[in-house]
């Protein structure tokens, strides 16, 4: 009983949103926009749920004195302190702002910037000519890199790089997008029709697992 209720809800919610695209009836348009709004609100509830989850996991680790429990102390302390500051002083307060700018934002940008190192090490490792595939990958990547800096100016590299981005890159990405869209349509149709119900923790009827 409880299983069918869940799949019925999925069906109704999904069909309404899809119908909104095809039909211009005010009732459906209104229902669809209400539904999407509701799911935004539900995700706000889930965000808090995620936090509760984190609290539970680390509290358990602490009480069991499992390996690295000291790290859990740091996490819990920073989380609780930050919640108290955020909820009592507000996100506009100077303490919140100082930590936000110098700790949070600073760490974010630095971690994000690690991509600069990783893009180099991944290129070093994988751009080795082993066949036609990797040869093409290597040649186009190097051509574009040359074109994007002051290095290849003399050999019209900037123009070649622009062309590579504009033509072959567009073609490849477009083909992938079209295929991906078909896959997306197909999987979401299955979700709406209740044929892809692994998410609800149910056993599907059709599947055959060995």
């Amino acid at each position: 009983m409880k299983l069918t209720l869940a799949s019925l809800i999925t069906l109704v919610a999904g069909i309404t949103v899809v119908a909104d695209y095809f039909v211009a009836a005010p009732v459906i348009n209104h229902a669809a926009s209400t539904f999407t709004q509701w799911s935004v609100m539900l995700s706000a509830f889930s965000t808090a749920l995620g936090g509760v989850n984190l609290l539970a996991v680390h509290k358990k680790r602490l009480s069991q004195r499992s390996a690295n429990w000291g790290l859990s102390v740091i996490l819990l302390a920073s989380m609780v302190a930050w919640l108290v500051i955020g909820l009592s002083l507000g996100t506009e307060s100077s303490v919140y702002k100082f930590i936000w700018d110098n700790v949070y934002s600073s760490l974010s940008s630095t971690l994000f910037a690690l991509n600069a190192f990783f893009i180099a090490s991944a290129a070093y490792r994988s751009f080795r000519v082993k066949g036609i595939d990797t040869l093409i990958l290597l040649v186009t990547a190097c051509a574009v890199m040359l074109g994007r800096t002051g290095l290849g100016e003399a050999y019209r590299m900037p123009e070649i790089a622009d062309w590579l981005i504009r033509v072959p890159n567009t073609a490849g990405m477009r083909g992938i997008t079209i295929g991906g869209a078909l896959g997306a349509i197909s999987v979401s149709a299955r979700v709406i029709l209740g044929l892809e119900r692994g998410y609800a923790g149910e056993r599907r009827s059709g599947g055959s697992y060995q």
Partner: protein
Amino acid sequence: MISKKLANLDSRIVYAVVFLSILLPLWRPLGLSISVSDGTLKVHGLLNALSQDDTVIVSPSFTPSTEAEVYPQMEAVLRHLLSRNARIAFACLNVESQIYAEESMAALAPEFGYEYGVDYVILPFTPGMETAVAAISNNFLGTYPRDAYGTPLTEIEAVTGIRSVSDFALIVDFNTGNTAIYYIQYANPRGVRVVAGASGVTVPYLTPYLATGQLSGLIDGMRGAAEYESAIGYPGEALAAMDAQSLSHASILALIGLGNGASFLSKRGDARDAEQKKQSYGGELDE
């Protein structure tokens, strides 16, 4: 043996090479020259053609994660706009837009004697991205009854005579997403030219519009910012960083070359490896 070691170089050496290739030119600039691309030249040309009575929409639609690339573009373009005495209206499509508008003008306004309200105005944040751009294009005054600080727009000298979006001379959008495309779709058909400054990731999606002329100019990433700085003859942060860019790219290219050379040599000495290479996996990267 050396070739084998080179072929399996520790990642940390790669990191160190990249790090130094950026640090050294920042410390001791090389002063490599760069050419100015067509897209940047077009933006520069359009701005040069502005007259004193023209009002321009500047839209800082980028986010902190790409600030490093796009903010220098905006700084250079604003410097040019201010030197042309153009009036500016900042449109804010992101939560952060207003901060960028305030920050940049705080730095530039004193130098050029610009005054808030008289020479420029910051319009309030309008959520909704695409719908926001559509609203601005369809009904400018209706969308913005007041500026970001609550003053009625009718009382602001910088936008006197502006009735609709077509009264603006130009829209300059600095973006990391689709906002320039929205301006192209909604504002451009109303007869106002759109130019964009974009992050390197977004540029491939914008170049098709440059080809069709719907986009009148395009500044591409940090290199674009450097080009603009050199075009207006005011070397700034981006131009100073170009040496680091060029050198870091060169170091990656050199590493790739080295890696290939080394693996070629070590493979040639190792017949068994060559045999393994032949076992190609049907559809996979030829490992």
